């Protein structure tokens, strides 16, 4: 078990492509995306266009602690421009190396 960082991003789905690009560039290669998330934000624009393709997405990525700085630098301007929020916390990873033979 070792420490990694957990990055949660909530944003409108129209930003998804851009956010994933930036995560990738910051060296975070893994992520999951939950779509069709209902939400309400401070700026109250959350249910905007709810019938269209512009609903919220919840992006969850885990990365090494040292990758956090580039992530923040890459993601922050995007969220400032288009809206959305980002949270970071600590978790322990159960290291998983796919090695079928060993089992």
């Amino acid at each position, binding site marked *: 078990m070792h420490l990694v960082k957990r990055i949660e991003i909530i944003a409108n789905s129209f930003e998804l492509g851009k956010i994933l690009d930036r995560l990738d560039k910051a060296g975070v290669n893994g992520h999951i995306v939950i779509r069709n998330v209902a939400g309400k934000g401070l700026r109250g*624009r959350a*249910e905007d*266009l709810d*019938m*269209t*393709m*512009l609903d919220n997405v919840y992006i969850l990525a885990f990365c090494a602690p040292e990758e956090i700085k580039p992530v923040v630098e890459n993601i922050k301007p995007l969220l400032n421009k*288009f809206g959305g929020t980002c949270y970071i916390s600590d978790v322990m990873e159960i290291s998983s190396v796919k090695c079928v033979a060993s089992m």
Partner: protein
Amino acid sequence: MDASLIVSNILNPPVLFFFLGMTAVFVKSDLEIPPPVPKLFSLYLLFAIGFKGGVELMKSGITTEVLLTLLAAVLMACAVPIYTFFILKVKLDVYDAAAIAATYGSISAVTFITASAFLTELGIAYDGYMVAALALMESPAIIVGLILVNLFTVEKGKAREFSWPEVLRDAFLNSSVFLLVGSVLIGFLTGERGGKVLEPFTQGLFYGVLTFFLLDMGLVAARRIKDLQKTGFFLISFAILIPILNAAIGLAIAKFLGMSQGDALLFSVLCASASYIAVPAAMRLTVPEANPSLYVSTALAVTFPFNIIVGIPVYLYVINLFWS
């Protein structure tokens, strides 16, 4: 005025289910059409209307008449955002004005489809190539809107850079335009034989799916109505008067080009309607400074219901007066 057209329009199942959807929100019923269903229905409607249009286009061929109509459609899609932009700039900043103008320059496929179902019910013929006009009018307004932003922010000394390849892809390859154009092409290629095998699907279900879809549109439009408070009186009047103006200009062009009654109605409805899906999606990415609740709620909560309920029969009434 001959009120019977309005009444006969209102007593249509699609329009009544639109009201039912609005009512559900007002009385706080928990009725909802679960998420991907409205998306599925809108894909279906684009597919069906596009395909049928393509089959018809194949039958009629691409004549001068067709080309003139399509040219007029593109011109209107470029002209509308320009003059509405200057009207809007009286009260709003450049960003909001350009975004709303783009919205009204583009079209609402559901309004078009509702009008075509209305015509079918009344037994009034219309040409298949009007669907091509629908397809051509969706995108130009996005481009014109961005050019307006560019010009008028340059003026103010903060020039804007757009990633044009991305903008063009958003404008011309977004899912609705792509599916509609693709379906028209496929309908055109397969012609009558293909049309025949798909008929139970594209024809039989069409009216029912439209009805169901308008139930959902009623829910969505009503939820937007509370946003109108923020929108203010100026924009609400805009959202009713501009469609009338655009429809009138559309009718004049239709008369000038000698379109049939059915085609004239569809053309005026294209001019009068405003986009609440494709253009807002594009605007959020390219003009994030504009307030989405302004351009979405005017198009969706005012102009859309207005056209569906009052506009379509009124435009047809005017056509009845001038065409015969």
